[in-house]
């Protein structure tokens, strides 16, 4: 929201500057050009420990969230990863590459104003339309591929959570029993708010609760989860060929988002593991 406001201000101040260097469209009007990015306005990025957790400093100024709250994260590793994101911006700040910062902002500001129960309900609702539960009947090769690749993950989830999920070729999807939903709701309730924001993010990226739980439980790698999530696309690519600026672009973006979400969940819910290791030293 604040980025939009800044952009409007920037455009209002100097429309000539904003229009400079852009190609002209066929009618003489301006063709589409991407919005200007903000310059990197800081030199050094550092981390400091405050009362609420770890904070990010950009040249002695504290990083704030879009809603102007102080940016604090619960884990040092997460703070380091966020600081690395800010430090890796070269000339301009490219927010679309800063997935961990975005996730932290979402968790801090909670722009949708949802509480824990609503977050869990939104996450479990995805099970009804889970990618892995919808199968095709034709082409036969794709149906076979889905069975071969997706069935083991669904079986793993059924065993791990002791639930029934199943799959379907009908547009209505599989009949998922209420006990399955209750099991997932009570399992997700054991995560804190930060981790839940991350879990919901991963689910909406992969379009699958089952794949997301496979990632959170460290059963499959990010690369594998993304491959399974894009199985039909991969099949079509094999058949019709790969287009770098669409297929590879989507693949990299989805991998980055899924990896950021998974890392975020693990870093926000791991305090007990860290204490455990510290006692050993």
């Amino acid at each position, binding site marked *: 929201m604040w980025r939009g406001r800044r952009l409007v201000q920037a455009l209002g101040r100097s429309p000539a500057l904003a229009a400079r260097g*852009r*190609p002209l*469209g066929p009618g003489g009007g301006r*063709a*589409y*050009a*991407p919005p200007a990015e903000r310059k990197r306005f800081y030199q050094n990025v*550092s*981390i400091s420990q405050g009362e609420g957790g770890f904070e990010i400093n950009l040249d002695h100024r504290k990083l704030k969230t879009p809603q102007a709250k102080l940016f604090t994260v619960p884990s*040092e*590793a997460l703070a*380091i*990863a966020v*600081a*690395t994101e800010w*430090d*890796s911006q070269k000339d301009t700040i*490219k927010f*679309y*590459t800063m*997935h*961990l910062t975005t996730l932290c902002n979402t968790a801090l500001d909670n722009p949708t104003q949802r509480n824990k129960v609503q977050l869990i309900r939104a996450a479990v609702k995805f099970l009804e339309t889970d990618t892995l539960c919808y199968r095709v009947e034709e082409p036969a090769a794709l149906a076979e591929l889905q069975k071969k690749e997706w069935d083991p993950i669904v079986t793993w989830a059924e065993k791990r959570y002791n639930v029934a999920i199943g799959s379907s070729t009908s547009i209505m999807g599989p009949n998922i029993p209420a006990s399955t939903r209750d099991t997932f709701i009570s399992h997700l309730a054991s995560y804190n708010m930060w981790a839940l924001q991350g879990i919901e993010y991963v689910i909406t990226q992969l379009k699958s609760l089952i794949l997301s739980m496979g990632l959170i439980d*460290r*059963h*499959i*790698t*990010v*690369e*594998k989860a993304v491959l399974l999530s894009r199985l039909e696309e991969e099949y079509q690519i094999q058949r019709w060929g790969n287009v*770098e*600026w669409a297929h*590879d*672009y989507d693949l*990299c*973006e989805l*991998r*980055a988002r899924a*990896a*950021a979400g*998974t*890392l975020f969940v*693990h*870093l926000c819910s*791991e305090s007990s*593991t860290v204490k*455990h*290791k510290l006692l*050993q*030293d």
Partner: protein
Amino acid sequence: MAALGSPLRTLRGLLRELRHVSGSAYRDTAAYRHVLAAFRAHRVTSEKLCRAQQELHFQAATYLCLLRSVRQHQALHREYHGRGERSPEEVAGLVGFRLPRQPGGKG
């Protein structure tokens, strides 16, 4: 547990990505120190089934995937999407065509 390969390979990949992010001074960054310290702390352990080590390795592999994918995505974005609309000649060139030329001008 997901198959991750050798931890050393993951560490090398991570250091390569961090070097790419921060340039030659990457050894001075907090991320470099944190990654090395974490890998060292989990190298030897008395636990029979070392769950913590596997968890750390999974985390490292996830972070490696994040850094690598962001770099690749940014490169593709710069190449294909970051410069606004293309001219008809450029678009034709993308798919290996050339626009027809007429020696006497249009007509």
